[in-house]
């Protein structure tokens, strides 16, 4: 838990409120939630070393504070299966980015584990002016965007609250497996909710938090992206 507070304290001291993807993921990992590993590599050599450690396949993304739309800059390569593919992707990214953004400050590339597809889940947290921190659970994609099929509870939650939140959504049937798709690990999802709750409880400076998406598998749940905003 110290690590978490340190990251957040450093951010506060620096007067920043928005954590980068790598910072947010580090914080989530330290909160005990499984998340696709993402690390910064300053050069190709470092990128290859990280790949060796976290395993293939991987995603490479340009890391630059000046480039927000990474895909448009040709700065994202996915599904890289071995060192050879990583080397080629690295060269392609650098060539493309330097051509399109010659003045951009480039820190290197982020190397990210490629998660195998699972049932897409969203876990969110925000502050309600009346009730304080609230946690949200829902299925990703159209379920949250169009059907607003989500459930809420006040933080902190108990185990039974977490279980009820999951069972309460209309799309719960999808989590139990349908048309041969494997069922989602409900206990692992409940555990993610519990960990987000206790993490937010211990760090009241967090204003918003999103794990979007979280992939649910039959035996685990893994957050693929994280976003954290401080007060």
């Amino acid at each position, binding site marked *: 838990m110290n690590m978490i507070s340190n990251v957040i304290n450093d951010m506060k001291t620096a007067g920043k409120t928005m954590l980068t993807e790598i910072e947010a993921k580090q914080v989530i990992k330290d909160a005990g939630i499984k998340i696709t590993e993402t690390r910064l590599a300053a050069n190709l050599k470092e990128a290859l070393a990280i790949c060796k450690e976290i395993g293939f396949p991987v995603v490479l993304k340009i890391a630059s504070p000046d480039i927000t739309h990474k895909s448009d800059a040709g700065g994202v390569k996915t599904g890289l299966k071995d060192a050879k593919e990583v080397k080629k992707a690295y060269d392609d990214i650098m060539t493309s980015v330097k051509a399109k953004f010659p003045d951009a400050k480039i820190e290197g590339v982020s190397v990210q584990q490629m998660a195998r597809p699972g049932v897409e889940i969203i876990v969110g947290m925000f502050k*309600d*002016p009346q009730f304080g921190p609230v946690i949200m659970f829902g299925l990703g994609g159209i379920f949250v965007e169009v059907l607003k099929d989500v459930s809420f509870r006040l933080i902190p939650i108990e185990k039974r609250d977490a279980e009820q939140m999951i069972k309460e959504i209309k799309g719960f049937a999808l989590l139990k497996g349908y048309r041969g798709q494997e069922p989602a690990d409900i206990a692992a999802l409940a555990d993610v909710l519990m960990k987000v709750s206790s993490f937010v409880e211990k760090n009241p400076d967090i204003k918003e938090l999103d794990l979007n998406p979280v992939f649910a598998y039959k035996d685990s749940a893994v957050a693929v992206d994280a976003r954290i905003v401080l007060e």
Partner: protein
Amino acid sequence: MNNLRVSPENWQFLFSPKTVAVIGASNTPGSWGNNAVRALQMLSKERRVYPVNPNSPEIAGIKAYKNVKDIPEDVENAVIVVPEKFVPSVMRDCVAKGVKSAIIITSGFGEMGEEGRKLEKEIAEIARQGGIRFVGPNSMGHANTWAQLTTFGQFGEMPKGHVAVLAQSGSTCLKIVRSLNDSGIPLSNYVSTGNEASLTMEDYLEYLAGDPETKVIAAYIEGLRDGRRFYELAKKITPHKPIVVLKVGGTEESARAVKSHTGALAGADNVYTAAFKQSGVIRVEDDDELIDVVYALMNSPLPRNNRAGILSIGGGPGALAAEACEKEGLAIGTLQPETITKLDGLLSTRWPRRNPVDMAGPAASEMSVVMNLLSALIEDTNLDFILLIVPIIFDKDLLVKWVGIAPDKVQAYRESQEKSILQIRDKVEQFQKPVVMMWQWRGFSDPETTSLFRKGHFIVCGNARRAARVLKYLVWYRQYCVGAEA
């Protein structure tokens, strides 16, 4: 604003004052300042009432004072009904006098825009500095039946009971209070909380949690001042004292109406829903449901689970009841073989041998047979509660008009019915299974018969859908309590 918690003395002065000043008392019949004086005077001999009016030496036959400061003894509670522009100076006088508690009936404050909000802040600040906690402004009154205290300007003795009502609307408060009284449920305390500039919904809740006379708390809520505090309190209260809430503002226009009514911000309705669920608060959809659920909580045991047994006068009502139950997430229980054997001895050979049980034919017209059937279903361990749809023949008017029983014989018939019903009550208690009684008639039909069924601790409902919803709430609440214990 409300970090100050309220002391037991404050509550004592507010709900059981020995001395009350009515500031803005009036000789105009029907005015608030007149009704309040007379009702306060009439309902208790021990209470001393002091009308305050600068222009009249006497109000409703009682000596009046020009200023609250002139009253020759301590004033424990002040009822303020003067026009809004005079309220700040009246509040200053109350502070100077050492008044302990107050209620401001006057409206025209926060609900009326910026000017009113400023005025409301001003009086709240004067009161806070002077140590006065008050109800309102824009309240329709507060009452404590155990002290026979009411500032609603009602007359007549108030029946003493065990249900408290808190409402952020005076009219809704009175409708709920009247409806509960009509259903045979007397009240303990009820408060029209108004704009809550001093005492808030959360404060009253905290008080009622510790009030030994209050067994159930019902509330009408438009918006909370401190949702988190409400939640924390409710979580502690609901495992031993049920809270039933009717909360409005879940739709766009209703939220706007709420804002212009008490100036409360409705907030995100789905977060309210979550907070209520998580703290064991039963959230109902309308005032009828509120009454039904409070009635059930006061009269009936809680069902262990969600399996319904249906005993019906005919096939149609039974099917309707089954559908209503299933739509509310309740299950239709499977009868045990022993139950089927018992029913075989009581029903015609043509009965379908399944739930819902259709008691068509002569069985349904004989109260003692109906009670034997009901007994058999209550004993069935596959059923958690019973819906009973009885024939219209139990109605007094119909006994006279259709069956031709002489009016003087109706009494004897009733007495025999009562015996059967009291036997069922013992059964309901013994097996801890709610029984909901429904008429083949819109509404409650004959009040005499309805009250007879109530003696049996039956929940009496107008139709199957209402019955199913009450049961859904009870099942949910019991499961919440069991989970909270674990």
